[in-house]
């Protein structure tokens, strides 16, 4: 995300966004100070494991976190207006018109008792005052657009009569209906089979290019971000740990968590029985997050400083590639730290030290 880009292409600027859920056990700090910017027509991937705050982040920007126990602070400036301080009535105008969202599970995100046709166009009619006949025509166009065969028949169907892939296409059609400027796709393919996932991602990519629409693609799958996004945010424990154009990120991962995530992923390009570099331990408790870097308890590069001070998200060589680490991967400090940790027999370092001769031990000690 270059600062050099002309400012009129800038669509969304999120600054220091924090979201907290108060529950009986305490305050869950789901998002802890996230900042990023997104230009028109670009795709931003947000990647991380479950519980890292990626979905909460997307919903916070959309103001869709329901319930009286949620607090969101910070700003999210969208086309010059701060979404987070907008009156609710104005937000209703933004939803669907300017901002749209596609959800994870197409089985549950459509109302099972309402025909597809009404669900595709009800917001068109409410927002734009479109008549019934025109809405029906638009609905057919939209279904053609998302490549659903026999659109007239499908509009009369109920959601359960369609397959998962079809339903997700319907959801995309709904999201596109009012030509939004920004689309959030929250794990849009997680509930789908791999061949259908491919279809849906192709569809989203095509629509986004044709409409010059900005997209935030939230996913847990590094593979999905790799092929489909311009920029990527890697999140861990509610914070951004690395942020870069997707190409440079995969070329050179600087944060130990990004590296560990990639290395723990089995890949078809690897030979069978390749030992995976598992990340030991489990993600931190967000009610009482660890001091210092949140990844430090699982990090193979951990140094005493990491446990005390939170590293800032900053760039070193490439101004677009920012990461939050004291001992980044590939840096002299990082290599030295790793060597020290292996020498000391730190479990998380030994577990990923695949060069060592005695690497047969069980990888996990969670």
């Amino acid at each position, binding site marked *: 995300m270059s600062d050099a880009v002309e400012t009129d292409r800038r669509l969304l600027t999120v600054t220091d966004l924090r979201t907290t859920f108060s529950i009986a056990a305490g305050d869950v700090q789901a998002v802890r100070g996230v900042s990023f910017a997104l230009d028109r027509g670009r795709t931003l991937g947000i990647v991380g494991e479950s519980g890292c705050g990626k979905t909460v982040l997307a919903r916070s920007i959309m103001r869709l976190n329901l319930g009286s126990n949620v607090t969101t602070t910070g700003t999210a400036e969208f086309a010059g207006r701060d979404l987070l301080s907008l009156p609710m009535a104005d937000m209703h105008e933004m939803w*669907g018109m300017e901002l*749209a969202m596609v*959800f994870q599970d197409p089985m*549950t995100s*459509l109302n*099972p008792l309402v025909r597809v046709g009404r669900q595709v166009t009800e*917001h068109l009619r409410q927002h734009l005052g479109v008549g019934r006949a025109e809405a029906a025509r638009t609905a057919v166009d939209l279904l053609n657009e998302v490549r659903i065969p026999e659109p007239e028949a499908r509009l009369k169907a109920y959601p*359960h009569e369609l397959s998962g892939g079809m339903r997700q296409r319907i959801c995309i059609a709904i999201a596109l209906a*009012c030509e939004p400027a920004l689309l959030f796709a929250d794990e849009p393919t997680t509930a789908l089979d791999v061949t259908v996932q491919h279809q849906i991602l192709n569809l989203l990519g095509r629509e986004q290019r044709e409409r010059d629409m900005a997209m935030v693609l939230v996913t847990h799958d590094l593979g999905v971000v790799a092929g489909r996004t311009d920029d990527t945010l890697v999140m861990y424990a509610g914070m951004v740990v690395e942020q870069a154009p997707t190409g440079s990120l995969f070329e050179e991962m600087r944060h130990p968590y990004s590296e560990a995530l990639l290395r723990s992923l089995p890949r078809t390009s690897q030979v069978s029985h390749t030992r995976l570099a598992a990340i030991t331990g489990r993600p931190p408790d967000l009610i009482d997050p660890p001091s210092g870097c949140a990844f430090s308890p699982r990090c193979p590069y951990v140094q005493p400083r990491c446990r005390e001070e939170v590293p800032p998200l900053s760039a070193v060589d490439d101004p677009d590639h920012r990461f939050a680490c004291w001992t980044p991967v590939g840096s002299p400090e990082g290599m030295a730290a790793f060597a020290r940790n292996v020498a000391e027999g730190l479990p998380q370092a030994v577990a990923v030290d695949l060069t060592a001769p005695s690497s047969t031990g069980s990888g996990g000690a969670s």
Partner: protein
Amino acid sequence: MGTFIAKRLVRLVGTLLAVSFLTFLLVNLLPGDAINALIPIDAQQDREFVEQIREEWGLNDPMLVRYGRWLGDAVQGDFGDSIVTSRTVSSEIFHRLPVTAELMLVTVGLSVMLAIPLGVMAAYREGTRLDQVISGIAQVFLSIPGFVAGLLFIYVFAMKLGWLPATGWNRLSNGLLDNLRTVILPALSLALIEIAVYTRVVRSDVMNTLQEDFVLSARAKGLSDRYILFRHCLRPSSLTLITVVGLNIGTLLGGTVVVEFLFAMPGLGKRLLDAIFQRDFMMIQGITVFVATIYVLVNTAVDLIYMLVDPRIRKAD
């Protein structure tokens, strides 16, 4: 869908047969012999007379034969004769049914009309003062049985304020207003619990529906809250309400017995009670089977309505 209805109807007939047989069994097998009701105790010393009566009423035939005979008549609408008044059971039922039917209709109508808005409001404003008030009142109403409520209403509205009659019944043909004056207190007495039950059902259902993903996606589309609440939430939530109303008809039928007794209304429940006190076994048998039949029919209807409202069930099976 056709097969579903057919299956449901077959089951309905099966249930009705079983229900009628069970009632017959109860009335005929349990210790209190019908003969006690037919003849005074002192007359029972006369063996021959007793035997003659037994023969006359067909009490000596094997039970299955008697059941078959009774069932054959019953499907033609002949439930036998009352052994006390010697009028036919079916004519008594026919005569008394309108009172009970009206009482129940008014009760259910009143309850549902109050419960839906109350439940939706409480769910939409979950956790607020309004919700607490509505839920609290429902909790109290849930604990007041019809006879306590009825007694209270009689004391307040009939005895102290004198606005409404304490007992009695005015037919609809005597004028709507007079009719309503006699039905309102009994219906209200029965309605308290029903209002509470339905409000709680609607509230918890709408609350659950509001948690659904499709409500979130409806919000993300920018639909207004009112539209989401009534066009997206109410329909899935009403499914449970329909079922609960159907199941509660049973409680309500029981409730009418008590309330008709308390308000001296000439309904089916009152007639059943009279029959019980007079040990009029033909009457007991007839009314019990009739009431159970109504209950089973209502619940079959509920299943069918459910199917019409929920497209998922329409397709499955």
